[in-house]
């Protein structure tokens, strides 16, 4: 039998649909937007890494539908649609570029490759269908001939000949691409031409009458720009017989036109855009995620594992968290100091107040530079105003309680907190859950006991650290993204730790208008787009109506999965203004830019780094001071 850790790693640890393979069909939970994908219209599913695009597209494939049906041949026959899954492979599509032939010739070459690829997927499906159902699929000889002719193949009279000719054509075409500078003539086909006769022939067969066929193209962002235009053209002109379902990262769909530069793909006339984050409200995402986690927990063969994930991960109220962060001894010091300034009746009132509120008095006293007695008397006479202020600052106060100390300085615990930290990303949520469970089990506990706030926080820090480290390898520009996140994370950490006298919970930024030259605008825009695409940042429309092409119209938030690592608030709250030059400066001259941004916000850059961030000390320069020993 597998150990607890192995079981959890197996069920939860494979965060990527790509790694789960067959198991994704078993573990799949339908998101709310799923029915929209089942129509005969082209759909573009937009979402960051880990939002479940691949899972959804794989489930729509004929293999996915078969697995979900319990591998029933009858279900294959009765299916409403058949989907052909294809992930765009960078190593193949980048073969179709270079100075050896003209751009127009590359368009014709890639269009032919796409014809071969798409037709091959359909033929492989037919083979599979025959194998699984035992039913013969007989394409009429005339259709085979027509298809062969349109693909520029030797004549074929049946499916076997067609399959063989296609494979041979692919080998020949591979040899042609490998010697493309030889200038030899290639037997190419017209873009999309073979698809019509192929699907017409299929639609004419009894077994496929009235069925829909979907090409499921994942990781569309891997296509080169002109290649996106070729597929866009196919999407624009796909009709009743077949359609396309596209999976693409946010901002990865770089070209919206067809090969005709004046012809745009328009939503909803030409396709349905499904933005994963917009289609799931936070509450819906929480419900969906809970279902995903609980169904995986139910498969664990461990004592106490039938529990609900929400109850396994309890949260802390702000007051409970303050207790754990040592508010009691701080409050005692405040009371002791107040005793010499206040009357016995005032002291009596003070003794009944929550310790965190007392700390707020002290916090305000420091910020306003007045006597504690003045603050407390003002509180007693303007209670309502103070309660509102306290409400605004209460959570922000927690970041300051153990400022500069070693150990946990801020807790990140509870299912709802994890849901917010995942920001609609199921992969991140699973990482937070599995890491918490593993830390818990490694501490000698079992799943009938709840995971402690300490363990959840350590898990959240380690998930943040892992994802910061991973940014580097996500794309060729990963290092810039890492530096950007490290810079912004550090700024928001200092703002959170040094909060007295400042706006609480500043953890977003927006771009100043008209502050940058065109070059900085362009380079900064590219950097921010890459950061959003690879989930270094999350962006939301700002106050104005937005043009999606304008980076300035958005508010940017360091992805909250990093917040436990840096120690800033996971709740999207207030924002500061940056220029594009400052954003670029965080990558080019991080230390100086961080210092300058903090100075603009009346903070100093010598705030100690959180312990978990010390490993990036070389990026920040030698830490000016390290955390002090526990002392409350």
């Amino acid at each position, binding site marked *: 039998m597998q150990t607890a850790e192995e079981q959890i790693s197996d069920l939860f640890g494979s965060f990527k649909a*790509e790694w789960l393979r067959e198991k994704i069909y078993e573990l799949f939970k339908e998101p709310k937007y799923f029915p929209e994908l089942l129509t005969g219209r082209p759909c573009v599913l937009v979402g960051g890494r880990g939002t479940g695009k691949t899972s959804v597209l794989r489930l729509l494939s004929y293999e996915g539908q078969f697995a979900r049906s319990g591998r029933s041949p009858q279900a294959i026959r009765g299916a409403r649609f058949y989907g052909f899954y294809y992930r765009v492979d960078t190593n193949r599509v980048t073969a179709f570029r270079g100075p050896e032939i003209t751009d127009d010739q590359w368009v014709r070459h890639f269009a032919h490759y796409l014809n071969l690829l798409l037709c091959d997927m359909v033929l492989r499906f037919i083979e599979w269908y025959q194998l699984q159902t035992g039913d013969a699929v007989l394409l009429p000889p005339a259709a085979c001939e027509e298809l062969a002719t349109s693909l520029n193949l030797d004549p074929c009279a049946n499916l076997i000949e067609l399959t063989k000719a296609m494979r041979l054509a692919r080998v020949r075409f591979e040899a042609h691409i490998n010697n493309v500078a030889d200038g030899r003539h290639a037997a190419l086909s017209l873009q999309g031409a073979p698809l019509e006769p192929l699907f017409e022939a299929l639609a004419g067969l009894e077994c496929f009458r009235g069925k829909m066929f979907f090409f499921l193209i994942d990781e569309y962002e891997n296509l080169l720009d002109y290649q996106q235009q070729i597929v866009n053209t196919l999407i624009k002109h796909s009709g009743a017989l077949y359609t396309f379902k596209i999976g693409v990262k946010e901002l990865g769909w770089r070209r919206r036109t067809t090969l005709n530069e004046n012809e745009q793909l328009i939503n909803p006339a030409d396709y349905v855009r499904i933005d994963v984050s917009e289609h799931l409200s936070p509450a819906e995402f929480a419900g969906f995620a809970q279902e995903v986690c609980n169904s995986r927990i139910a498969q664990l063969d461990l004592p106490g594992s039938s529990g609900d994930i929400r109850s396994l991960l309890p949260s802390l109220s702000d007051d409970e968290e303050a207790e754990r962060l040592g508010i009691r001894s701080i409050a005692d010091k405040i009371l002791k100091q107040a005793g010499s300034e206040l009357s016995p009746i005032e002291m009596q009132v003070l003794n009944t107040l929550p310790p965190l509120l007392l700390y707020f008095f002290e916090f305000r006293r420091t910020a306003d530079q007045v006597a504690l007695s003045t603050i407390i008397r003002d509180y007693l006479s303007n209670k309502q105003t103070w309660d509102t202020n306290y409400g605004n600052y209460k959570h922000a106060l927690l970041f300051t309680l153990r400022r500069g100390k070693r150990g946990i300085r801020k807790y990140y615990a509870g299912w709802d907190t994890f849901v917010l930290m995942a920001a609609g990303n199921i992969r991140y949520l699973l990482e937070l859950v599995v890491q918490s469970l593993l830390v818990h089990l490694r501490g000698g506990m079992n799943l009938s006991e709840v995971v402690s706030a300490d363990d959840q926080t350590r898990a959240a820090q380690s998930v943040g650290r892992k994802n910061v480290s991973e940014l580097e390898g996500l794309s060729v520009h990963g290092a*810039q993204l890492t530096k950007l996140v490290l810079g912004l994370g550090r700024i928001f950490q200092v703002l959170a730790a040094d909060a007295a006298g400042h706006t609480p919970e500043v953890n977003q930024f927006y771009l100043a208008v008209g502050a940058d030259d065109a070059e900085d605008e362009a380079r900064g825009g590219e950097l921010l787009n890459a950061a959003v695409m690879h989930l270094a940042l999350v962006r939301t429309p700002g106050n104005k109506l937005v043009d999606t092409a304008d980076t300035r119209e958005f508010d940017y938030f360091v992805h909250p999965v990093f917040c436990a690592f840096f120690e800033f608030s996971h709740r999207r709250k207030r924002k500061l203004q940056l220029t594009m030059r400052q954003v670029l400066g965080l990558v080019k001259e991080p230390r100086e830019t961080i210092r300058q941004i903090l100075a603009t916000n009346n903070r100093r850059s010598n705030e100690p780094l959180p312990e978990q961030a010390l490993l990036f000390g070389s990026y920040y320069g030698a830490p000016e001071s390290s955390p002090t020993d526990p002392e409350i």
Partner: protein
Amino acid sequence: MALLSRPLLTRKFENAEDFIPPPRSVLVTGHSPEERSKYTCDWIARFVDVSIWTIADQMQAHIRLEGSSQEIQLRSQKQLTAFWASAGRRTLLIDITGLAHHVWAPLLKAALATGRQVQVIYTEPFDYTFSKAPKEGEIFDLSERITGIAPLPGFTSLAEEDEDRVCFVPLLGFEGTRFAYLLEEVQPPGGKIVPIIGVPGFRPEYPFHTFQGNTLPLRQTVAWKNIRFAIANCPFSLLYALEDIASDYPLDLLKIAPIGTKPHALGAVLFALTTSRRVELVYDHPIRKSTRTSGKNRLLVYHVSALTFSSVS
């Protein structure tokens, strides 16, 4: 099969300049900014009846020889065949030390297709000047170091692919971020990642640097369980390791990422040219820097044409 019973077809020269190319040979070479790719005048003076063809330009799509204005396209069987044909009946030597993979791989493929004797030369560096094992927390800037994934000229594979039937074989170097980037791009099935590490390394401590530099992706994919070893400076040892992997994964398309030592990359290319199995080379095209290595160490001569080739024409 044990390595002992497989021929390694290699001659080693502890001092690089002890090697003298055979008479009636053509030596194709290229100079990178690295010291080890340069030939001293004293050394060349000892060569007898050896034509040295130096590649002056190593462009993405073509090369140009020193003293010539003619461009030779790397995706052209016709031009590469003509290139070697002009060497007459001589022995063909390719010094890959200063040549980029995208240059020597198609040249080697075309050279082997001539049916003549082909030898590959490689000079080890004395040391690497960069940090051999980037520590966690040190940011590794791929954009300054690679140009991105694209097939090597002449090695594009468009074979049909069943995603579940892929075995990914990264030949690891010190730089774990390159491995992580390739994992992100290739997305191989979990459990079928079989990394190869150079053991023994050019120096005894190098395998440890390799482990250390690749810790994060090795741990995340659990690929550390599948690691295999091949002598770092021996393409044949690598070729045999790949043959073993191929027989362990008999139905899979092998996607090999030659991001480790150059002799390992040579082994991967030789494997692609000798096997009847479907193979795809996945490469991220690093940008070489002058400060990468220092000095010269051993020189190795690989008698590659002693192998039997299936797909060189």
